[in-house]
């Protein structure tokens, strides 16, 4: 029987993979993912002003240029994704510089002030950005502090103590302290999590439900089912469809990961050969990596990863079982499409709840929904990562899903046995309820 099962799985999988559309779609996905991973380089390839170096010409009438340059560089390092700055001391008169000013030039004229120690004038061709303005302003304030402290007559150690940061020790008493419930990155990460985990899962489930239903319906409506079921038990056929659907998801996931890695490899090779590209996208990527590193997200996910993977697998099986059972009781693809609508609505509802989870922080309703089978798969991991539920709760949600899936299989197989050879919708529900009571071979 194992030989027949493998034949069914092979046939089913071949039907999904050995098609020109699978190849075409995968080529398109690969191109898209690789392009996204290297989007900054693609943008650079088409040309444009990406260097974005701002020339700051300092006319120093006080003797603070070195300090200004030091503070400016320090401050700009604290901010991700700032442009390049070339800070130069100018001996020219402001009037002369103003005449020759170019697009990316900023003239900073620093002078002594009788009532405010220092004063400055910023001259630029266009309006300068808020970032540039703040950097200059902060750096000027820094040198002003130094300037005032120097004049105050305090000792060096007193000045050092005065200017050093206040030490803050952080202590969290919550039992869920490992989660980053109040993390400053929470909103940003919830968007990231949804994109990375939920969207592919959502796409996979919808694909799985549609593909499995269409295949069973095809065999049923062509009456090929009679030949198949006269050779293998319905149970074997049922299992083979689920295994094939899951195998397809695994293969497609591996391919997606492969495309992602290939994209990163190409990025790595290009950066080694051509040097790094300074661009907005590079800035976002490095910013994202920094946020994930700082947030503790990796630690949180790695702790729960085995449970999340189990929950994903069980949920895929449950969705596949339900899709197979629904397909078995319909007599044509139109009926199946109608019947799958409630199932699709459940998937959409769980997707929306997962998205809303970070907005409605602490909502009891959303927490309860994380334990409801079919919805839990998208919601529970998100709530756990956001610190809304504990690892134990995530485990309970997985166990609930496991028990539900087993029940679904137990009763589903009985309906499937009757459904796949039923070609009439007359007394359908009566037939299905009757099938739940009997034991078949």
């Amino acid at each position, binding site marked *: 029987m194992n*030989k027949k099962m493998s034949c069914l799985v092979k046939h089913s999988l071949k039907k999904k993979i050995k098609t020109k559309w699978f190849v075409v779609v995968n080529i398109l996905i690969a191109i898209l993912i690789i392009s996204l991973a290297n989007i900054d380089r693609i943008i650079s390839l088409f040309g444009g002003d990406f260097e974005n170096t701002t020339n700051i010409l300092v006319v120093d009438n006080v003797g603070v240029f070195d300090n200004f340059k030091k503070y400016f560089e320090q401050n700009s390092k604290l901010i991700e994704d700032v442009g390049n700055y070339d800070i130069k001391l100018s001996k020219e008169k402001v009037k002369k510089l103003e005449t020759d000013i170019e697009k990316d030039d900023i003239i900073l004229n620093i002078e002594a002030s009788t009532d405010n120690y220092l004063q400055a004038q910023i001259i630029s061709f266009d309006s300068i950005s808020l970032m540039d303005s703040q950097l200059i302003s902060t750096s000027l304030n820094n040198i002003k502090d130094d300037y005032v402290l120097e004049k105050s007559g305090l000792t060096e150690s007193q000045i050092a103590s005065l200017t050093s940061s206040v030490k803050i020790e952080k202590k969290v008493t919550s039992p869920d302290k490992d989660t980053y419930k109040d993390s400053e990155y929470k909103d940003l990460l919830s968007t990231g999590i949804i994109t990375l985990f939920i969207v592919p899962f959502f796409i996979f489930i919808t694909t799985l439900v549609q593909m499995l239903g269409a295949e069973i319906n095809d065999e049923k409506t062509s009456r090929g089912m009679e*030949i198949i079921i006269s050779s293998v038990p319905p149970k074997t056929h049922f299992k083979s469809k689920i295994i094939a659907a899951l195998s397809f998801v695994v293969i497609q996931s591996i391919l997606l990961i492969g495309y992602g890695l290939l994209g990163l490899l190409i990025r790595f090779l290009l950066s080694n050969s051509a040097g790094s590209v300074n661009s907005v996208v590079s800035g976002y990527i490095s910013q994202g990596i920094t946020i994930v590193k700082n947030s503790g997200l990796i630690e949180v996910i790695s702790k729960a990863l085995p449970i999340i993977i189990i929950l994903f697998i069980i949920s895929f099986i449950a969705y596949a079982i339900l899709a197979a059972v629904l397909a078995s009781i319909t007599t044509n693809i139109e009926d199946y499409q109608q019947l799958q609508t409630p199932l699709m609505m459940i998937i959409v509802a769980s997707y929306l709840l997962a998205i809303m989870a970070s907005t409605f922080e602490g909502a009891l309703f959303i927490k309860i929904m994380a334990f409801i089978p079919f919805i839990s798969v998208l919601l529970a991991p998100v709530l756990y990562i956001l610190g809304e539920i504990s690892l134990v709760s995530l485990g309970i949600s997985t166990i609930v899903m496991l028990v539900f899936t087993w029940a679904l299989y137990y009763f589903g197989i009985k309906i499937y046995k009757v459904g796949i*050879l039923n070609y009439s919708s007359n007394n359908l529900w009566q037939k299905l309820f009757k099938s739940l009571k009997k034991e078949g071979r």
Partner: protein
Amino acid sequence: MLKVENITKYYGNLLAVDNLSFQIKPGEIFGLLGVNGAGKTTTFRLILGLIDKNNGTITLNNEKITYDNIDKIGFLPEERSLLTKLTVIEQVLYYGQLKGMTEKEIIEKLDYWLERFKITEYKNKKIKDLSKGNQQKIQFICAIIHNPELIILDEPFSGLDPLNVEMIMDVIKDLKKEGKMIIFSSHRMEHVELFCEKLVILVNGRSVLSGEINKIKKDYQKKNIHILGDVDSKKLEAIKGVENITKIGKELVVKIENESFIKDVFAYVKKCDNILKFSVEDASLNEIFIDKVGATYE
């Protein structure tokens, strides 16, 4: 041997098969006759275990039919059961493997059967691109490729032209010689009459006529006398034992109640002129059916 004993099947309150029994020995061709909805396909589905029976037993070589011995059965369903997007070779490989065959065995046998049905050029063609008749041939190949002991053919000649019917009939006769048990259904009596030894005629799931065709015909008292010559049909009608007279072409067919009336008819005919034919023939199955059931068959 296939033994079907007292099987009954209800669909809700509808009695689909009513206490049906028959046996098929190796090397026998068994006909299951009945109009649409008579219970032929249900009987096949019961034999294959596709549906559960309410009563009765079905055994193949004294064993209950289960998925352990199901590969001994080959099945050709009434409707096209082919996956039209597959090529011929993919289709036969799929169904053949489900019957426990290896790829190598299937390809070897497929070549033989494609040759026999004169459709070798379609090996790599998609099923959907084949004509209805050729699709039926492929379906027939799928049913017999694994060399089953029992072959169930549900309306095997549907959609076939006379030449192809002849071709499949020849194969069925060869399979019979090989000792296969063959059961086939048809709503065409002449197909069954042509090469079945035994039959069951179903009406509303109930057997109205069953047994060996020769014996059924022999036991049936009424005979037909075919006469070609200058005879007066009114005088023939007046003879005792003559039930009715019909004209087929130039021939008169005289139906008599039993063999004992042949001599009376002959006594009249020998007095007539230009008699070219006088032959006594058994009643056709169709006539027997009408007589037994009180209605026309189709």
